[in-house]
């Protein structure tokens, strides 16, 4: 009968663990800490973050013209930057479409890494304005864009795998 297993579990206790000593003091410490605001619904925060990110690209390509950016180096570079900005923009849109509970964490992490890279990029822009047309800085800026794209592409592959685990596996075998 199916019920024997259930009976066994309801008749016995399964609390065998005890927290490590000092847990009460550690909890008191947490209680007395001023409340971190990390609980302010990170869904909203992340949505806001991605809006800021996308906006950042637009502002980055429009507003920063006061400052010299990659696009100001040469018409070729302008093309390069436009390509990256629009592709990243597109991929971000794809990413948002895939946002759900399962993928939340992956997407968040990717967005964080993108923001880091964006910060790095800003320092390159500053350097470019100070040092003028430097080959090294320009190639680092391009690499920076490439890295952002790579992150996005990797995440999209992962998301695809989550959505459709069998499909990807089959493809490998084919």
């Amino acid at each position, binding site marked *: 009968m199916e019920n024997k297993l259930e009976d066994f579990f309801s008749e016995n206790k399964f609390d065998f*663990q005890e*927290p490590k000593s000092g847990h009460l003091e550690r909890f008191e410490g947490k209680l007395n800490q001023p409340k971190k605001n990390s609980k302010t619904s990170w869904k909203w925060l992340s949505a806001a973050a991605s809006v800021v990110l996308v906006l950042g690209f637009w502002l980055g390509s429009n507003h920063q013209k006061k400052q010299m950016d990659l696009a100001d180096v040469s018409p070729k570079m302008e093309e390069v930057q436009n390509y990256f900005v629009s592709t990243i923009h597109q991929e971000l849109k794809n990413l948002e479409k895939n946002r759900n509970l399962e993928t939340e964490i992956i997407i968040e992490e990717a967005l964080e890494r993108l923001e880091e890279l964006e910060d790095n990029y800003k320092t390159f822009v500053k350097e470019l304005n100070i040092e003028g047309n430097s080959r090294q800085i320009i190639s680092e800026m391009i690499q920076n864009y490439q890295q952002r794209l790579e992150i996005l592409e990797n995440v999209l592959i992962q998301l695809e795998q989550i959505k459709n685990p069998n499909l990807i596996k089959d493809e490998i075998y084919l």
Partner: protein
Amino acid sequence: METNQPHITNLIERCKKFDKNAQLLLYKAYYSAMYNTAHRILKDSFEAEDIMQEAFLTAFTKLASYKGEVAFGAWLKRIVINKSLTQLKKNNRYEEVKMEVIPNDTIDDEAIDYKDLNPKKVLNTLQNLKENYRVVLTLNLIEGYDYEEIAQILKYTNENVRTTISRAKKKLKQVLLAENTQIQAYGK
């Protein structure tokens, strides 16, 4: 669900006013059960403590929304379970879930002598099952949630929960039976 004992109700009222002593007393009353619940899901003492304490802090800040429809312990436990599962997902971000084929022969429940089973060993066996089996069986057999509640907690469909639990039970019985016969063989 059982209702709260009077002194718990009293503590909850004081906690709603952020009375620190009452918060500590409530912690002392429930930490052990909550810690074990988190530990069964996370299988890690450090994470279990952290999640358990986080759950208490969340509970204290959200206490106004606790209307007493269920016992406080049950309400708190849901917070612990949700947080533990979120953490578990975080830990497994890149881990691939294996599909397992379970032979379709029915397990003869009579063959397992439940009287001889040691709860600690059974828990250990359960925890060594693959993860989704482990989680559904923990929720179903130990925490006592029904299929519908588990579907809600895990955001699975009812159908999915039913099949997963029945497969998981089958698998657990298989392993228990195998272990049991092994012990008997050694005993000879």
